[in-house]
Structure formats: C-alpha cells, structure tokens
C-alpha cells in the first residue's frame, strides 16, 4: 500500500483533459511561493534515499518520450535512476511554482543557442509564471535544482571528498587563470589544496552555467575567481563564516564575459559543496546586493519535502545573507 496515495488528493485539471490523459497515480505536490527578486531557491534529492522501485516507475512516467529514450540509452541501474531523478526534480520543482496548476509532465524544454536548457513557454492553456529560470547539477549522490524568477542562475555541486584523478596543479595550469594557479600553488597541504580546487571549480562552473554560453563561450582561463578577505567592520549579527567575499574578474575587452554576477558557496548536508551564481540587478544599489538570499529544501517528490535552510544541513561558506 503506497502510503502517499490518497485519491481525494488527485488533481483533475479539466482544461487539460482534452489534450492529455492526465489522471496519474501520484498525488499533488505542495505549491511553493515564488522566490523574491534577489532570492534563489535550491531543491535537492539524495538518490540513495529512494528505495521504492514502484515510485521510481511512477517518476519515470512523468518524463517526456525523449527523456525516456535517453534513460533507456544509459547503462547501469544507478545511472538510470539518477537520470530519471534529474528530470523529475526539474519538472516537479517547476510545477510547484505554478501553484501546481501545471502537471510536471507537461513542461516542455528547449535549449538556447548555446545549449543551455530553459523552459519553453507554451501558448494556449498552460499557465507558467513569467520567466522561471532554473539550472541543475548532479553528482552520483545528490541532484540539485536552483530556481529564480527573471534572474539567470547557475549552480554546481560537487562531493566535498571528490579527488580528481589528475594532479591538481596540472589541471589548474591547463584550465584555470594564472592568478588562480598561483593561489592554488600557495597551499602546501594536499587536503587544503584539494578543497580550494573544488571551491574554485564549482564557482567557475556555476558562473559558466549562469552565463549560459557553454564551456567554449566562457573559457575557464579567461576569468578569475578570487576570495577577498572582508575588511569591513565586523557586524555582530553576521555569522563568523563570512570571512571572505567571492569576486570575479574578467578581461576588460571581453564582451561576453560580464562581471555583474554574485556568488554564494555553501556546504550541503555535510557532504557536498554547492556554488550558486546569480546575475546582479543593475537597478539595485551595490550594497544591497552583497549577499544572496537562499532557501533550501530536500525533497523526495510526492513523498516528503523538508526545508533545510537555517539547519546544519546548509552551512554558509561565503555569500549568503
């Protein structure tokens, strides 16, 4: 007996019945209020916590034919599961922000001309709030989806303990900017160097994904992420962890690489590093945009949602208000 299946909770969006058979065995999702102007929402799934094979099957039914085909092409059960959960996370998350008026399976996606996935706003019938922006990232042990309204967002997550196969400085020499290589080389202790490498990596990835121009549109070596110590007078309410700010420098002659982006770096669930990058609002005074507002939920869609903000599961490393 599926404990979450309550027939009285079944939605019947009548305006859509004529186009699709929408009656599903899955109950409604709780709606979520839209992020405010300077806010990002982050939803994450821990694949290991899904053990119910029939739930996974129900999740699979939410995918588009194209997505289902892609899952079929993947070899290995764990990878297939991640692929399904990745699409389910995007679809269910977006559905929440439509007051659950739009069934998760009905979203259509397209890629911008550089390959960044975005919601395709459809004409006639479906209600989708203006400009829901999203970005996904996944590791084998966590899948995350960041959402904003109007503001381009990029996220990247990595396991804290991830150890690149290759030598870190070789990787940095090949891909990072000279300043970043020097910064990394200044760490003698291998663990610290690894930790700093991952911080730089996730932040750079988040920026490139936020920009939406693909890896070749924003080569890693053409911009620098650096950590600036906060020399501002100490405000008692501010958490101690905010000892540095994340800055980005781009070459002045680069028209594609803009610098009006703000960053946050958090530790999620004790196991993962998450970098979030959002475009700054040029109409807002600079001081108000020093810190990003972030709300985080852990979810197993249709089963359980837990707000993790203000808990130990979300530790601010830098950039959060």
């Amino acid at each position, binding site marked *: 007996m599926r404990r979450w299946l309550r027939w009285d909770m079944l939605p019947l969006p009548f305006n859509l019945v004529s186009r699709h058979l929408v009656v599903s065995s899955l109950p409604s999702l709780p709606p979520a209020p839209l992020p405010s102007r300077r806010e990002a929402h982050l939803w994450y799934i821990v694949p290991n916590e899904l053990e119910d094979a029939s739930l996974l099957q129900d999740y699979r039914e939410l995918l588009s034919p194209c997505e289902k085909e892609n899952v079929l092409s993947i070899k290995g059960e764990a990878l297939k599961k991640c692929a399904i959960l990745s699409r389910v996370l995007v679809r269910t998350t977006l559905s929440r922000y439509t007051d659950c008026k739009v069934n998760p399976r009905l979203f259509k996606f397209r890629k911008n001309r550089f390959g960044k996935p975005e919601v395709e706003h459809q004409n006639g019938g479906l209600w989708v709030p203006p400009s829901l922006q999203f970005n996904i990232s996944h590791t084998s042990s966590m899948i995350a989806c960041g959402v904003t309204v109007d503001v381009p967002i990029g996220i990247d997550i990595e396991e804290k303990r991830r150890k690149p*196969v290759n030598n870190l400085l070789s990787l940095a020499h090949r891909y990072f900017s000279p300043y970043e290589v020097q910064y990394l080389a200044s760490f003698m202790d291998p663990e610290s160097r690894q930790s700093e490498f991952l911080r730089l990596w996730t932040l750079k990835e988040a920026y490139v994904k936020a920009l939406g121009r693909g890896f070749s549109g924003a080569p890693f070596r053409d911009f620098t992420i650096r950590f600036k110590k906060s020399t501002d007078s100490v405000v008692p309410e501010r958490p101690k962890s905010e000892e540095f700010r994340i800055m980005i420098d781009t070459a002045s002659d680069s028209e594609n690489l803009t610098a009006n982006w703000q960053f946050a770096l958090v530790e999620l669930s004790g196991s993962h590093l998450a970098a979030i990058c959002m475009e700054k609002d040029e109409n807002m005074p600079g001081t108000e945009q020093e810190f990003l507002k972030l709300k985080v939920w852990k979810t197993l869609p249709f089963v359980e949602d837990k707000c993790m903000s203000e808990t130990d599961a979300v530790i601010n490393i830098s950039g959060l208000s």
Partner: protein
Amino acid sequence: MMHVSLIYVMQTNGVTSGVKFVTIGTSKLSFPSLRSSRFRVHCAAKPETVNKVIDIVKKQLALSDDTSLTPESKFSSLGADSLDTVEIVMCLEEEFDISVDEDNSQNITTVQEAADLIEKLVLQKAEAA
C-alpha cells in the same frame, strides 16, 4: 580515378554537324590505395586510437575492466560530469601530444568523436611540422 567517355552529337535539323568526345574523370574512390589526406579526415579513427580513448575513459571514470565501452558510448551516459570530461580531455592531450581547444572539446560527446578529433589534430600537427 574512373574514366567515363561521353560522345556529344550536335545536330541541326536532324543532320549531324559535329561530334565531340569528352572524357570525364570522377573523384569517387575505386582503389583504396588512392587516398589523399583530404579524405583521411572524414574516415573513422583507427581502432588503436579508439581503444586508447576507451582505456583513458575507463580509468578516469573508475569503470571496471569488464564494463563494455563501444565507440558509440556517450560520455554523459557513462556518468561523466564536466570535471570528468576536462580530465579526460587533458589525459588525451598528454597521451597524443595534441592541444584541444574549448570549441572542439565541447563537441566531443562519444568515444568515436573523441578518437576522430584526436586523429584530425595529430594529422594537422604532422602537416604543420
């Protein structure tokens, strides 16, 4: 080269006024030994190259020896994320002594595509030398 002969017969009012012989060569390859470098770029990579790519990918993604990888295997379907991909590209550059720019590395999605690009770059490097 295949040769084809055509005969044009010019007629005016049903009376033949002239005959022209034209020989046309086609550029279709009939003989395998007649390969020019222009055609090599479009041929699939050698099996040795493909196998080396497979070895590097297996090592990077820590796949077991009995995992079967084919030229059609997609990196994303193997669970490779962006960090894996750049590590793979860097290993391939070191193994084959080539340089892959960002435009090219973004277009590599399968083992075959990686092997084809490697051979193209190796050839370009040899021709430039």
